[in-house]
């Protein structure tokens, strides 16, 4: 980010909070969005950790999918595949929405993690 932008905003009468709100934050939106994506995606796909830490109280969609493949009483590959596909489509839709709000195109690349 260009340092002179914050200086300009201070010159034009913004205090520190105003500069944060009107200059720094809007300019860091693409970074914030990719941050959201980077947390959102792994969270969606975790299984076991939340299940185990909550003593089996909280079951995430990942746990459900895992049960459909590995828990002998619930084995149903087709259902598991269906849930996975629905999950994938939902994620891709939400990512497409997030990408609409960031002007940072797919091409710019860079380190993502």
């Amino acid at each position, binding site marked *: 980010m260009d340092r002179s932008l914050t200086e300009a905003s201070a010159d034009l009468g913004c205090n520190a909070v105003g500069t944060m709100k009107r200059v720094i934050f809007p300019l860091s939106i693409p970074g914030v969005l990719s941050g959201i*994506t980077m947390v959102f*995606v*792994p969270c969606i796909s975790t299984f076991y950790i939340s299940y185990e830490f909550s003593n089996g109280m909280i079951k995430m969609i*990942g746990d459900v999918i895992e049960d459909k*493949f590995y828990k002998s009483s619930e084995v149903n590959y087709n259902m598991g*595949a269906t849930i996975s596909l629905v999950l994938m489509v939902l994620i891709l839709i939400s990512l497409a929405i997030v990408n609409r709000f960031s002007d940072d195109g797919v091409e710019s690349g860079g380190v993502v993690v």
Partner: protein
Amino acid sequence: MKALRTVFMSLVMLLLYAPIFVMIVFSFNSAKSTSIFKGFSVRWYKELFLYNSSLIDALKNTLLLAVISAVIATVLGTVAAVGIAKMRKKWLKSAVMTATNIPMMNPAVVTGISMMLMFVSVGKLLSLTSSVNFFTILIAHITFSLPYVILNVMPKLKTADEHLIEAAEDLGCSPVAAFFKVVLPSIMPGIVIGFIMAFTMSLDDFVISYFTNGTFQTLPLVIYSMAKKPLKPDVYALESIMFIAILLLMIVLNIVQNRSDKSERSIRSK
């Protein structure tokens, strides 16, 4: 304002590193307890290396898999990035980049499940006895680390000077020689960072390995199966060693990145 900043930063650091710190402390505990510290000892480190061969074997497997998959992913990814960078049609380029990015954005559960289903059905078609084995987990790891390599090499290719390649060809280099003598050195920092990222992604992955491993046991899978019972502290010992190793790797990575940024800046300013 400044005090607030310090408090906030220390809170973040505390939340991030307190669990790891606790684990390292208890890996040096002489007793088995995870609540009372009975005294400093390297007992668990000794037990880990002398008696717990399943963990050490799993560590060897993990490192082997990480090295092989990172090498293959780096070679494939670099070649792919060079190809993508040379594409003339803009829509094709962005379409290919989107296609490369989707596996990275895809939830790991879905990637794991879909790969397992594919391996199982191909195995059935070829009527193999075991459809998932070392090669399937290797394919899976290469697949999910490829986008990271491509994403790290692409920006370097974009900033590489086209005139240098032309100059090399003018001076008698064949296109292949020009690639190895001019392009490759200039994108090397990106390749190195891509390799290290592929390596750590492979090292770290649990979900995809869980679905595609067969009988091949990696460290996260072994720890997962151990975590159903109370863990023995030799697991903490191993994890402490791994944490320190990753920490050192990250420091090296940062130094490499800083240097390449600096040299880039000095080239630009000339």
